[in-house]
């Protein structure tokens, strides 16, 4: 399919909405993406006509919803080229997926003085669960540094690996800098030392081709709401050998084969990790969102992303008062910046007044901000429906703000 921006924009009803009587420019896709009508319709339809708990009923509705839930799993499995449906675990989101692995992996494989490696540009969600695990097991957390362009220093990474390293967890794309990390290389280096790798794909899945077989990653995590799907649903992909080896994270209904007070036998994958009633309608909506972007084509999306980020860099660099944080050679559609002498919060407030939604602050990456010695940035993050015309409006708005402060 050709990338038809007008058609895509029409699919997102929220973009027709006026904010302060003007068309909304939504540049906060890193925080969450908007939803196409196709996803909204599926959610509506299920609540209106088909709602019934999955894997439990003998009746017609339950059967139908169970089928749709398992079809969504298959859609996601195909999209990321996993080997098996049961390697796709539905969770509440990226944070839940990482916490699951951090808990269960540490329980079985992490011992005193062992080491986990993460990077200096992780989201708090890929820092804190590992800190908790290390604290619990008296293990150590080691950090891959990045250079001022916002690129991980792989030579330093190699030096961090020891006999004690048990797992490496890094993000696919930095949510603050937009850097596309060389995860395939990171995984290859780890595997040559027999160390598994978890990829935080919260910003990756919607912007990059994710082929878990080609990447050879052991775990890949992402959220539904950042990939044009509903909130409260996400995915943990794990290689079967790891998911089989890990103990369950939560106990409850559906994750067991049999329960007695003497002994409980756990269910097979993927149900072993899906305790209780999952967000099954969310999962069905996520399946629809994945179909939606698959239909546009990830290669087309990558091309569109590149056009937007290159244009945003070019325009913003024309403004001498702007400092861009993160100028990696390989960058996705996230641009973090500050206007010299103007607090990020003031910039964000005034951009909002001009109908441009951006994020301001630390973006849940305080150690990254510390690297640059700043309190936060203004972040514009683009989605499939954004255009270069909107970046022009951002450019003009920034110039207006600079004028307001110069007066």
């Amino acid at each position, binding site marked *: 399919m050709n990338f038809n921006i007008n058609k895509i924009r029409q699919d997102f009803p929220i973009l027709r909405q006026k904010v302060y009587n003007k068309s909304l420019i939504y540049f906060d896709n890193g925080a969450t993406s908007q939803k196409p009508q196709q996803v909204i319709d599926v959610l509506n339809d299920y609540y209106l006509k088909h709602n019934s708990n999955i894997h439990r009923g003998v009746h017609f509705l339950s059967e139908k919803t169970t089928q749709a839930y398992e079809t969504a799993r298959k859609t996601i499995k195909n999209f990321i080229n996993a080997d098996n449906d049961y390697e796709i675990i539905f969770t509440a989101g990226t944070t839940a997926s990482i916490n699951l692995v951090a808990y269960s992996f540490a329980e079985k494989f992490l011992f005193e003085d062992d080491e986990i490696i993460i990077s200096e540009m992780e989201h708090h969600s890929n820092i804190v669960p590992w800190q908790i695990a290390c604290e619990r097991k008296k293990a150590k957390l080691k950090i891959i540094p990045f250079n001022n362009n916002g690129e991980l220093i792989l030579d330093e990474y190699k030096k961090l690996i020891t006999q004690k390293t048990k797992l490496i967890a890094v993000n696919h794309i930095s949510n603050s800098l937009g850097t596309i990390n060389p995860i395939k290389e990171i995984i290859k280096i780890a595997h040559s030392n027999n160390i598994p790798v978890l990829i935080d794909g919260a910003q990756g899945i919607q912007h990059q081709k994710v082929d878990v077989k080609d990447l050879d990653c052991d775990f890949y995590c992402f959220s539904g709401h950042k990939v044009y799907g509903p909130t409260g649903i996400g995915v943990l992909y794990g290689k079967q050998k790891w998911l089989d080896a890990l103990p369950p994270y939560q106990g409850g209904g559906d994750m067991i084969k049999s329960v007695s007070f003497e002994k409980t036998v756990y269910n097979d994958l993927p149900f072993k990790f899906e305790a209780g009633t999952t967000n099954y309608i969310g999962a069905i909506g996520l399946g629809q969102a994945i179909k939606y972007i698959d239909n546009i084509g990830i290669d087309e999306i990558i091309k569109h992303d590149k056009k937007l980020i290159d244009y945003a860099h070019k325009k913003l660099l024309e403004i001498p008062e702007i400092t861009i944080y993160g100028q990696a050679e390989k960058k996705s559609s996230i641009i973090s910046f500050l206007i010299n002498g*103007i*607090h*990020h*919060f*003031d910039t964000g*407030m*005034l951009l909002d*007044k001009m109908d441009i939604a951006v994020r*301001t*602050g630390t973006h849940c990456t305080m150690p990254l901000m510390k690297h640059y010695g700043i*309190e*936060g940035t203004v972040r514009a993050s683009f989605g499939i429906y954004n255009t270069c015309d909107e970046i022009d409006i951002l450019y003009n708005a920034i110039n*207006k703000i600079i004028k*307001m*402060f110069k*007066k």
Partner: protein
Amino acid sequence: MTINEIQDQIIEEFSIFDDWMDKYSYVIDLANDMPIIDINKKNEKNLINGCQSKVWLDAKFKDNKVIFAADSDAIITKGIISLLIRVLSNHSPEEIINANLYFLDKIGLRENLSPNRSNGLNAMIKQMKMYAIAYNQKLKQL
């Protein structure tokens, strides 16, 4: 002037602005015109961390009145702080405790106090009232 008289005066001043840009430019001017706070007062004890922007609030009690001084690293927050100080500073603890801050609604700056903005302004107003309550207790003990 009473707290409400000052609030009405501010509402009157803001009534001339018919677009947001003039209004916010004025808020920026107010921030720039604020007296510079003693650097020693920008300490950990006076810091109200709003996540997005930082606010420092200092209070002293003189002639039965509470005198506030404050600062922020974000200019719009600072401009609104200057208005809050103008309204609440130099009044008795009782007046401050009973103050109903309606002017922010009337001048269209209430949105800056939404918890979503996490700029420390809400916490600052609470802290101003807390100071007033504490000084009021002190007065009663005298």
